[in-house]
């Protein structure tokens, strides 16, 4: 199996706050990694670094054999291969759903408008939002907006998808429709890194679960092992708090 992502000794600090402290991670093609851990443990920061939204302080990130943290790398080319979806959707409010999806393909990949529209139509059809193509984002529910945000990332035909707590801003009844989309992507073999608080979902979908603590991956393994038989004391504490909060 080919290696999709190789992270070594990743450090990232914001001012005096060191968020990532020498994090190592290796992901194979078609793996679905769920990252769990308390707020501030570095999940989001890791995803943002992988997409080069945040510059890193030290360490290296290699994507498909290419070191993207080396100097002089064409950042936009990297970002094309890696889709990222944010907690807060961040759809472009002045564009229709269709245009949200086709903007990057037409402007970055130079796809013709007609072909981009057709690809958008297929995506919308596949995820059941074809009737919303000409609506503006503010007319959509949170769940629908997040599904559009996922399609917008998919329209760039990325090899890797990074999902940053994509259901955290949603009303509980809207979570399932978004998780269904992610499930479909996993079935299709998409390599994914998912930061999530949905433990049931992580258990269900992950090929591997990583527990992040204080800027490193403290423990990782298959979901059954992490959720039923964690080795590290801090992992146990975290999962107990989650259970106590009724989230699992």
């Amino acid at each position, binding site marked *: 199996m080919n290696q999709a992502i190789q992270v070594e000794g990743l450090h990232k600090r914001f001012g005096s706050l060191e968020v990532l402290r020498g994090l190592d991670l290796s992901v194979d093609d078609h793996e679905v990694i769920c990252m769990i851990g308390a707020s501030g443990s570095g999940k989001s920061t890791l995803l943002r670094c992988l997409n080069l939204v945040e510059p890193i302080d030290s360490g290296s990130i290699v994507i498909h054999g290419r070191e993207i943290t080396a100097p002089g790398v064409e950042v*936009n080319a990297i*970002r094309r291969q890696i889709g990222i979806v944010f907690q807060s959707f961040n759809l*472009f409010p002045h564009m229709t759903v269709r245009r949200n999806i086709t903007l990057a393909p037409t402007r970055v990949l130079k796809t013709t408008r007609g072909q981009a529209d057709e690809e958008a139509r297929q995506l919308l059809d596949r995820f059941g939002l074809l009737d919303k193509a000409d609506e503006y984002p503010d007319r959509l529910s949170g769940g629908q907006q997040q599904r559009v945000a996922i399609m917008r990332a998919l329209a760039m035909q990325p090899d890797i998808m990074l999902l940053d707590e994509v259901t955290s801003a949603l009303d509980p009844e809207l979570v399932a429709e978004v998780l269904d989309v992610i499930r479909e992507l996993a079935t299709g073999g998409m390599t994914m890194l998912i930061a999530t608080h949905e433990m049931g979902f992580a258990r269900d979908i992950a090929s591997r679960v990583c527990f992040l603590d204080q800027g490193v991956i403290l423990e990782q393994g298959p979901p059954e092992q992490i959720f039923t038989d964690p080795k590290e004391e801090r992992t146990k504490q975290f999962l107990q708090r989650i259970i106590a909060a009724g989230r699992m």
Partner: protein
Amino acid sequence: MVGGGGGPGLADFQPGDPRLGRGDRSSKILGPLRAEGGRGVLVATASTFIVIGLIVFAVLHSAHWLEFKQAFFNAKVLGDSFPDILRAFRRNIVYFLIAEPVILVLALLLAVMRSLPGPVFFPLRVIATIYVDMFRGIPTILVIYLLGFGVPALQIPGLPTSAIPWALLGLVLSYSAYVAEVYRAGIESVHPSQAAAARSLGLGRWQTLRFVIVPQAVRRVVPPLLNDFIALQKDTALIAVVSGVAPEAFLESQIYQAATFNFTPVLGAAICFLVITLPLTRFTDWLVGRQRKKRQSGAAL
């Protein structure tokens, strides 16, 4: 408004600023009335009549009312001078129509220059910042005077020797600085997550500005831009200081005033401006109110 004092500063137009809500003035006035029903309307009407009646009575019975009326509200002088003033006012409109589009484009350029990220664009940011600081700091009338009298006096071949184009340029330079700040407030009001989303899709800095940030920014600043339209329409009168042989409305009224020793013609010029600016003001307020309602309903979604 001498010196472009009506030009708004950055602080004036942060979207969401409660002052932008001024636009809803009419409904703010009438709103409580509607709530109180017929009796409220009756009381309001009666008290309005009483207050205005008292003011009119006080004015008409003041010691110098007749002299005052003679000097400012002289129907005969107005009748004699108004056709020429109105004709001259056409120049104000032309100045406005020429200056406004140039200002809109130049100001957007300046605002984008100031918003370009990264060290490469440092010189552009500095140039734009200096420009804006300079022209916001100099009274518009001074810029118009300097350019309108100063440059034609140099008699440089190939450049216009008439004062008017230079005065117009002065107006454009000065207003562009103000309008650039309005645009910039709009650009900065677009949440950074929008840029992050665009960049994460592989769009470059410039593409992000052009397709994602600026379109949202411009939509948000339409009401303050309209306010600047109104100020600009008024400030075309500043060109009076250099307009000489081609008088605009204010200068034309001064010519009549000097000839008749009566200020009524200046009032005539004021009427010309009001006819244009009043509807624009109402429209701007209406637009602000509509935008606010939209924002509120958007937040409720």
